[in-house]
């Protein structure tokens, strides 16, 4: 037989179904678990470990006790029902103390305040997280910080209102000067004007209005905050503030202006080079030395500021990675069309860079949220260490070990898992490149 040297296809082949692979459980098992001696050994050992863990944990969970007044009573019930030597979980502690895990020492008759702040938070977050909702909802998002502050800390309603007006002052000054002085300079002047408003006018103005129109809620002190209330207040505020700050730092780090670049790099490297606990100690102790003695700078606010700085430095680096991944052609196309720097950043660069950075940004957020438990080191009542210590110092619950951590851990897991799922959904939704 000789090979044909010339060949002409007269008929094009139609597409066909791929061959159906042999299916079945046995085949799956053989391929995935027992494909060779090493895999077989690993599978068997793995199963053994899983069985051993289950054998220990499942009875412990099955023997759970929900109704008891102390750890000792729990143990008696378990011993009476399941025999001497049986172990079991004592969830009665959670049943008795869950409110402290959620609210700390917040006054019980005012639980409606943090609860409504919590649920309103979802209304405020919705238009930010989902862009198919009516755009007008964003106005509620804008006033939510003041509303939440007032609900949580109470006091005169006019303090947060006047504080929000500071942002109006900033925006007003910015729009007035933008066309004449350019974006960066007018933003700077706007910020100075707002700072003047907050530091000088805020106090007198708020108390003046309050003396005419006294509307307010009972004040709650920061040291009464605790548990997940504290974690969520710190976490959510720091998350929302650190994203814009990280964005500006990432842009600053790439800036052509030497001073802006040096400051950004210095800030990022300093903050990233220092453990968060150091910053928290700075918040609780050092700031008190530098500030005038009569200033009453709230401890939670101080912690929020430093946690925000910490997260912003990490987010800046994550976003810088996203910026680096953009091809130069995107910048050139934006330039060639005549878009100015801020337009190009907002319309072309940031949408793409942020999309690339979503997994990294959300990782930073999750890390930040879990790091809020570190505030225990500056004497705040975080849900993990702070509240658990309070519970254990009660004679009834002395010696309880696993249950508080499991309970707090489960709530942390739910929140963090939620963030993670949202980020995956967002990534899928924004995927338009069809690569």
């Amino acid at each position, binding site marked *: 037989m000789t090979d044909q040297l010339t060949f002409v296809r007269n008929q094009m082949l139609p597409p066909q179904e791929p061959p159906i692979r042999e299916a079945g459980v046995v085949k799956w098992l053989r391929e995935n678990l027992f494909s060779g001696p090493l895999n077989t050994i690993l599978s068997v050992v793995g199963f053994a470990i899983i069985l051993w863990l289950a054998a220990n944990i499942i009875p412990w969970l099955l023997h759970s006790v929900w109704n008891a007044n102390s750890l000792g009573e729990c143990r008696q019930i378990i011993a009476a029902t399941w025999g001497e030597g049986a172990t079991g979980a004592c969830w009665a502690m959670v049943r008795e103390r869950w409110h402290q895990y959620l609210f700390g020492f917040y006054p019980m008759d005012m639980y409606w305040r943090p609860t409504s702040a919590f649920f309103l938070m979802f209304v405020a977050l919705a238009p930010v997280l989902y862009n198919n909702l009516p755009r007008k909802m964003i106005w509620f998002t804008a006033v939510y910080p003041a509303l939440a502050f007032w609900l949580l800390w109470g006091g005169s309603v006019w303090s947060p209102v006047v504080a929000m007006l500071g942002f109006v002052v900033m925006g007003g000054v910015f729009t007035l000067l933008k066309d004449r002085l350019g974006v960066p300079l007018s933003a700077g002047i706007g910020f100075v004007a707002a700072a003047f408003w907050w530091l000088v006018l805020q106090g007198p103005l708020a108390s003046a209005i309050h003396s005419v129109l006294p509307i307010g809620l009972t004040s709650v002190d920061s040291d009464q905050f605790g548990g997940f209330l504290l974690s969520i207040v710190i976490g959510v505020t720091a998350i929302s503030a650190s994203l814009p700050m990280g964005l500006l730092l990432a842009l600053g780090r790439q800036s052509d202006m030497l001073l802006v670049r040096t400051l950004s790099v210095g800030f990022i490297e300093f903050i990233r080079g220092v453990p968060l606990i150091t910053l928290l100690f700075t918040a609780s102790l050092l700031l008190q030395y530098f500030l005038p003695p009569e200033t009453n700078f709230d401890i939670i606010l101080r912690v929020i500021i430093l946690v925000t700085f910490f997260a912003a430095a990490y987010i800046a680096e994550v976003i810088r990675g996203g910026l680096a991944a953009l*091809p130069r052609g995107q910048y050139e196309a934006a330039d*060639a069309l005549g878009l100015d720097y801020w337009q190009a950043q907002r319309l072309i660069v940031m949408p793409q860079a942020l999309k690339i950075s979503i997994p990294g940004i959300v990782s930073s957020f999750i890390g930040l949220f879990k790091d809020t438990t570190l505030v225990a080191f500056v004497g705040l009542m975080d849900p993990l260490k702070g509240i658990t210590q309070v519970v254990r110092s009660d004679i009834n619950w002395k010696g309880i070990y696993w249950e508080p951590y499991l309970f707090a851990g489960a709530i942390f897991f739910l929140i963090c898992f939620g963030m993670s799922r949202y980020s995956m959904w967002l990534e899928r939704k924004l995927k338009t*490149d069809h*690569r």
Partner: protein
Amino acid sequence: MSESAIDRSKMTISDEVAVQITNMNKWYGQFHVLRDVNMTVMKGERIVICGPSGSGKSTLIRCINRLEEHQAGQIIVDGTELTNDLKNIDKVRSEVGMVFQHFNLFPHLTILENCTLAPIWVRKVPKKEAEETAMHFLHKVKIPEQANKYPGQLSGGQQQRVAIARSLCMKPRIMLFDEPTSALDPEMIKEVLDTMISLAEEGMTMLCVTHEMGFAQAVANRVVFMDQGQIVEQNEPVEFFRNPQSERTKLFLSQILGH
């Protein structure tokens, strides 16, 4: 593409200067990329710039809309001199359209949004009007049906035609093409060249860096040959290809036409 099919009736060259480049020099660090370039482009001219790689031809047209900065000499585009003044740069950029080798469409925006973005934000055109203009130019480049797709869903040739439409939406007076067909499969080169030819037929001032010598012969009124950052030879296309003067040009032409 046969020359007879091309309508040269509107391809008139006015005596108005579109781009004036005088004694322009540019360095990349120590490397002298553009050396004493002088060039005058009249309104309505179709200029093809060719030359070996690294000869500075892309850099030259990128200087015209200030994607690259020149260090000495003068560039005047449509009466506006390119200096460090950002206002002048933005003015020139909004009047000069540019088409890139790698299209550089915005992947996160639909085709229609790609075309309306600059008119809306730079020219402050109302959204509806910008969309009508965009659809007009998408019709012109023969892909109106793709308006709501994303760039990643289109073929290379289609993407490049969208890039041309995107530039046209800014109603530019001058169009720059930086090797617009070099990244395309052979089957798609023609559709892009056809679009460029129809643009030339409407009297657009065009500067085009390309190795498509057929296009140069059919459309250009002037071919510029560059080597080592200098303009080595320029002539009208028939003479340029039939009777090149310098040795470098002869060598270059023999290499690109020789196979």
